[in-house]
């Protein structure tokens, strides 16, 4: 992992010495000293989690869908028995992210029972992916006790996904972490775009246009974790989606922010504008649907 290896000289020193001791029985102490890694350069930028990038929460997409007045369609979500038929790491990890996005979608639409059932599917899949105890029985119990409280459910699930992400990153499993995030993003896009009414809703067309930088960062993330071609089809499909965005160009106008120290709040008033045509929304929707189908195949 880039951030880790760049910034952990003690471990690198141990690793360097370990290799020297193991592979070269005649090695002398002076040779071992030669292998000591150089200290980091001054002002070197160390990326967080191996990349300089984060993926927006699916919960925010779910809020955008609901606030735009689109009809709730439970059938748009992934069938909860899908996890049983997917065996590869790529598919299981992305499906986990998709379930996370679905859970946000059904929760903000007050479908508590479906949210609980989705969490159970997540718990099962999380066990197969060895995510530690982020989605354990106690989380299910808390969910059951708060099934009528949308905010509590969203907070519980956000905390659980963060715990899983922390566990994966601490165990050098950034590939699974990235795939979970990608799955959540793809599903959020699908839930937004599946209803043709979205293309006539300005807030949603703008939101889809705003995904350009997220998509670029996500492709870069996937390329970084790619080792044996396991994600090649997914990367290629996302690159095709990127092509749909080439003629979408957000404009940005800086406005001076206002800070209120008493409330520890800064009000950011800069403006980003982006427009996406109905035709473009349809072509993006088709590409997203194809990616989703590929993951679930």
């Amino acid at each position: 992992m880039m951030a880790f290896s760049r910034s952990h000289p003690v471990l690198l020193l141990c690793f360097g010495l370990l290799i020297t001791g193991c592979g070269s029985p005649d090695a002398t102490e002076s040779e071992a000293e030669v292998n000591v890694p150089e200290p980091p350069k001054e002002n070197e930028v160390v990326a967080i989690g191996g990349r300089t990038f984060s993926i927006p929460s699916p919960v925010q997409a779910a809020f955008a869908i609901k606030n735009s007045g689109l009809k709730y369609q439970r059938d748009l979500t992934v069938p909860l028995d899908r996890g049983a038929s997917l065996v590869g790491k790529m598919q299981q990890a992305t499906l986990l992210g998709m379930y996370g996005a679905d859970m946000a979608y059904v929760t903000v639409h007050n479908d508590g029972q479906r949210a609980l059932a989705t969490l159970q599917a997540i718990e099962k899949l999380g066990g197969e992916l060895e995510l530690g105890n982020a989605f354990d029985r106690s989380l299910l119990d808390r969910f059951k006790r708060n099934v009528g409280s949308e905010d509590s459910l969203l907070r519980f699930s956000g905390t659980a996904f963060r715990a899983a992400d922390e566990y994966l990153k601490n165990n050098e499993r950034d590939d699974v972490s990235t795939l979970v995030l990608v799955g959540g993003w793809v599903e959020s896009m699908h839930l937004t775009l599946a209803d043709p009414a979205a293309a006539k809703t300005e807030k949603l067309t703008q939101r889809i246009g705003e995904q350009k930088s997220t998509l670029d960062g996500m492709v870069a993330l996937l390329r970084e974790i790619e080792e044996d071609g396991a994600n090649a089809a997914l990367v290629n499909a996302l690159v095709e989606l990127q092509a749909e965005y080439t003629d979408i160009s957000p404009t940005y106008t800086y406005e001076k922010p206002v800070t209120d120290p008493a409330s520890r709040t800064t009000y950011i008033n800069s403006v980003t504008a982006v427009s996406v045509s109905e035709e473009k929304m349809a072509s993006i929707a088709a590409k997203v649907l194809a990616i989703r189908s590929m993951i679930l195949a």
Partner: protein
Amino acid sequence: MYRSTFLILSFLGAFAAQAQSGMCGTIADRCEKHISEAYIPDGQFYRALLNGDEMAEFGLTLYGGSTYRVAACSGDSDGVLIFHVVDKEGNVLFTNKDHGNAPYWDLAVAHTLDVTVEATLDPAKAGSGCAVLLIGFKR
């Protein structure tokens, strides 16, 4: 002799990895308290090990109409990490350095924008350590 060296260094390597993981975990537990119940966690965990004046940075899309809470922690107490929020033109939108290295701050966003959060250790307080950033949001 070499076998002993191998075993010792293997142990040291494993110990160092575990120590880093544990150190970041402890800081994350403390940092999480700054994401109060009014905020929904974004589901992601960001961390980096910093030495000297190294800088950690990550890109973030902030959606219009939302208020984000950014919590930034390192060391064994609040105020060790300095962070700046910078837009894509390089304008500094906020820095906690102007506010006593506040461990968390809210960003109320009118319109969607891409920003970079840059984090460094306060050299007066730490020479190295695990930097943890957590993000929460509310409608």
